[in-house]
């Protein structure tokens, strides 16, 4: 290994610590051979192995060796830096060395977990350790800078999760911006009549929270709005929000409905989104009586004024406060926040994708979400469940797992469908006294009071047929089937294919990620699972954090879950945001770029490439200069600098080249 000229603090003394990670690493990598190998690498004065380096005794090993003067730099060969870089930097610091005199070799995710070949694993582990040793020999002590955390929080999505997180924060005295893209907050929960397993009235428990959001002095509620730009980093995000024009002034509208009355359309004519298209609304409307804010909105796609320009605009005349404003334009708001909670929820599975279930083909086949509206006292039928011909259904089949646990659509279990199917079975029976059949694969009712609810339904004489439904059609084979929908299913408990004629079918659709989840995740620079759910930092230990510091998750955007779990998660996300705010400041990774002014030729190449405007040109001395406070350590300028005058802490050319040399020398 070449000795770099600019070594400042004497000959390095490197300690290498190789972690077994229980048997995670040890049963693939030959630890003893690797320790012997590490001991012979240049500048290595200590090479040790330990069962769990991340444990207290593991960290203590490092600290003792530093205190004893045996080492001044540390290499830990264990898991991903994502897991434990902070742990070991900290241990290095606690031992008395600068925390950045540390380098990690990932011999778990990059080695033992990705091969069955023990010899190859050992060779690669050695190469990665050699690379880390070569690199750390050139590390320099670095100081971290602290920047204050902006105390305001952005919450995206106004379903139950977003509402609960916002209120928690606002009640703690924090200022919240709640951005919801629909004209009202409430999300899916606002559409339900009752909620399982307690059957309490959904509106009764949700709407007080919705009004509290509206009334809270600490919450700025922006409905009909979307986040269009995010810049910055933990503690210091700059967010751009687009407020779509609703053509009704939010501050003036009192929600009196006069404008809707006055509209030239005497009756609703366009599918009402809130009622899943089961009723019609006018171009000017309020989604539902408890909509929050209770402010009308004009849909320019259907409004005669916007379509033809010829409307006399009676709505505007009818509005006493003069709130109807056809000349409203979109507005871009820019706010600074320190943390973000994403609570963008889910989208219900499109039942038409399973063609053999006849959705959209036969009348009287509904999705569960439609049934939620139809059994809802505030819904399009006032809570009466009727068939297309106006009769009450005498028999109803509820088909579970539509778009869930199905390799053709979604392999995962949507978690809430068994429970809401039980709820709907109860409500349907209560409203219609029909025979209700549940077609299920497995009943999944884990949760407080959930199994009990299932027991209760069993006693309510609801039928349960175990088997995945094969097909739903109206092809009668015998007289009794005529005029009915026939559900074909293999009843796996009696081992027979059955044909069950019913009047009405409910398809219990699963939960899917929002169609724009990928765009949203890009905007906020977080990850998605392959199904599109936002990815938590750790499934067990950091379930509401993301890989981007300061961005948290709440509710169904992270994966299918029911309301109690959404609320719990929203509380957790709010607590994480509060913890960050209370901490007051964050330490920045000292990976900033810097100009070696002595050798900068003032060529201007870097000036234009910095995405953060952190580089300026000092004309008097013909040098470029990096503002460390603005630099985010992206390295773009370093790559661009033609003469190597720009370098980056933790990633100097020498360190990287030496790291590569370490690998190359030892493979």
């Amino acid at each position, binding site marked *: 290994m070449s000795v770099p000229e600019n070594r400042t603090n004497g000959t390095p003394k490197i300690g290498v610590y190789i972690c077994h990670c229980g048997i995670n690493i040890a049963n693939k990598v030959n630890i003893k051979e690797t320790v012997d190998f590490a001991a012979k690498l240049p500048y290595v004065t200590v090479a040790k192995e330990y069962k769990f380096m991340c444990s207290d005794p593991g960290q203590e090993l490092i600290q003792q060796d530093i205190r004893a003067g045996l080492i001044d730099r540390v290499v830990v060969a264990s898991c991903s830096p994502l897991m434990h870089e902070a742990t070991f930097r900290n241990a290095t610091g606690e031992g008395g060395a600068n925390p950045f005199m540390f380098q990690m070799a990932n011999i778990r995710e990059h080695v033992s977990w990705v091969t069955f070949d023990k010899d190859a694993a050992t060779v690669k582990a050695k190469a990665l350790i050699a690379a880390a040793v070569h690199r750390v020999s050139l590390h320099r002590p670095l100081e971290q800078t602290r920047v204050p955390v902006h105390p305001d929080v952005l919450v995206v999505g106004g379903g139950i999760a977003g509402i609960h997180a916002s209120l928690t924060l606002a009640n703690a005295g924090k200022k919240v911006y709640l951005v919801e893209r629909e004209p009202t907050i409430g999300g899916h929960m606002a559409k339900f009549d009752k909620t399982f397993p307690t059957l309490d009235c959904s509106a009764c428990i949700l709407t007080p929270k919705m009004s509290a959001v509206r009334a809270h002095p600490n919450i700025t509620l922006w409905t009909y709005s979307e986040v269009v730009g995010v810049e910055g980093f933990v503690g210091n995000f700059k967010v751009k929000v687009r407020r779509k024009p609703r053509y009704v002034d939010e501050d003036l509208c009192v929600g009196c409905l006069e404008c809707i009355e006055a509209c030239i359309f005497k009756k609703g004519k366009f599918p009402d989104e809130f009622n899943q298209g089961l009723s019609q609304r006018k171009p000017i409307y309020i989604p539902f009586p408890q909509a929050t804010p209770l402010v009308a909105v004009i849909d320019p796609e259907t409004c005669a004024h916007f379509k033809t320009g010829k409307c006399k605009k009676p709505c505007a005349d009818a509005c006493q406060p003069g709130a109807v404003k056809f000349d409203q334009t979109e507005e871009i708001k820019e706010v600074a926040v320190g943390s973000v909670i994403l609570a963008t929820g889910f989208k219900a599975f499109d039942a038409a994708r399973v063609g053999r279930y006849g959705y959209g083909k036969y009348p009287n086949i509904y999705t569960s979400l439609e049934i939620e509206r139809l059994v809802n006292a505030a819904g399009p039928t006032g809570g009466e469940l009727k068939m297309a011909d106006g009769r009450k259904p005498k028999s109803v089949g509820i088909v579970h797992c539509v778009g869930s646990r199905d390799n053709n659509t979604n392999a995962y279990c949507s978690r809430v469908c068994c429970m809401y199917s039980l709820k709907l079975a109860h409500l349907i029976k209560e409203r219609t006294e029909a025979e209700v059949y549940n077609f299920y694969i497995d009943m999944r009712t884990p949760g407080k009071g959930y199994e009990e609810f299932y027991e209760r339904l069993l006693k309510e004489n609801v039928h349960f047929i175990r088997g995945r439904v094969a097909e739903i059609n109206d092809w009668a084979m015998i007289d009794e089937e005529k005029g009915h929908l026939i559900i074909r299913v293999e009843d796996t408990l009696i081992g027979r294919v059955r044909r069950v004629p019913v009047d009405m079918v409910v398809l219990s659709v699963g939960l899917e990620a929002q169609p724009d989840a990928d765009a949203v995740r890009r905007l906020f620079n977080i990850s998605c699972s392959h199904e599109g759910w936002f990815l938590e930092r750790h499934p067990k230990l950091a379930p509401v954090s993301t890989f981007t510091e300061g961005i948290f998750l709440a509710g169904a955007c992270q994966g299918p879950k029911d309301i109690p779990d959404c609320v719990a998660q929203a509380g957790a996300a709010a607590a994480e945001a509060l913890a960050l705010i209370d901490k007051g400041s964050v330490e920045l990774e000292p990976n900033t770029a810097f100009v070696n002014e*002595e050798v900068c030729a003032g*060529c*201007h190449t*870097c*000036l234009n490439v910095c995405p953060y405007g952190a580089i300026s040109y000092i004309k008097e001395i013909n040098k470029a200069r990096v503002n460390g406070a603005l630099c985010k350590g992206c390295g*773009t300028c370093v*790559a661009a600098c*033609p003469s190597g005058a720009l370098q980056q802490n933790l990633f100097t050319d020498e360190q990287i*080249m030496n790291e590569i040399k370490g690998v190359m020398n030892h493979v």
Partner: protein
Amino acid sequence: MSKPKVAFYWCASCGGCEEAVVDLNEDILGVVQAVDIVFWPVALDFKRQDVEAMDDGSITVSFINGAIRSSEQYEMVELLRRKSKIVIAFGSCAHLGGIPGLANTFDRAAMLKEAYLESPSVTSGNTTIPQTEITVPEGKLTLPELWDTVKSLDQTIKVDYYLPGCPPPANLIKEAVTTILEGRLPEPGTILAPDIALCEDCPRRETKPDKLIIEQFKRPSQYIIDPDQCILAQGFLCLGSVTRKGCGAVCIEGNMPCTGCMGPTSRVKDFGAKAMSAIASLIDADDEEKITKIIDGMADPVGTFYRYSLPASIIHRSYQKPDGGGAHNGA
């Protein structure tokens, strides 16, 4: 006290470096007076045997120019290394491999085929390519062997100092000779030129726009270069920002872009890679199609960015199959 002994030698080069020594004009006389030139095949009648007869380490300084690409060149530089206290790689070819180094995009077989069989200037029907050995009635004749791979001087022997440039600028030569003769030896491995990029010395420095961007690559053969504006800002590939200064910006003064003969600064490991990275940063487009269009306007990227430094770059040469030819590749 006897005068210091000096040798000059050339390997794969164009002769320009020899010119550069002569270009010292009257100053050459000073040098000639101060030293004993013991070997300089281009100017003085010495033979290899004369060098072989010298004591090891008896030559004070050998200035060697040209890249190394044949068995004979290798033998000679080996010999000079043994006989010399100090070896200076003189000029771009010895320093980084130089223009001959671009041959590393081919191999020997392809080069010989082109030069002796297929080039339009070859008498058609010729089937003879150079051999290292041939027996004629008078006896056996030999020729040095051409290597597959062109090397920089320090890839074959230990080099003490480097005088960069194509050819090295007169003032740098003078300075180097004076320092060495006065015994003020710099750190071994030093490149005897300022360690900062040419832009600093550029007469057009003030004309650099703050927003330096390239929307189209232009070639001097197609467009007229505005003599008062930053050449790179006009879209001509000027590599002054990547290249070590010390030349006095003579090309710029002559209204031509810098082609990078002085090589990179000490902080840059691979001139061509760095140049590409820097120039790519200036391309003013963000969709792939536009980027491709701009880049396609750049003629001969290897010849442009690695014009003087392919052998000394990280990759050295184009890929050769392990069984490809087996020609001798030097030390």
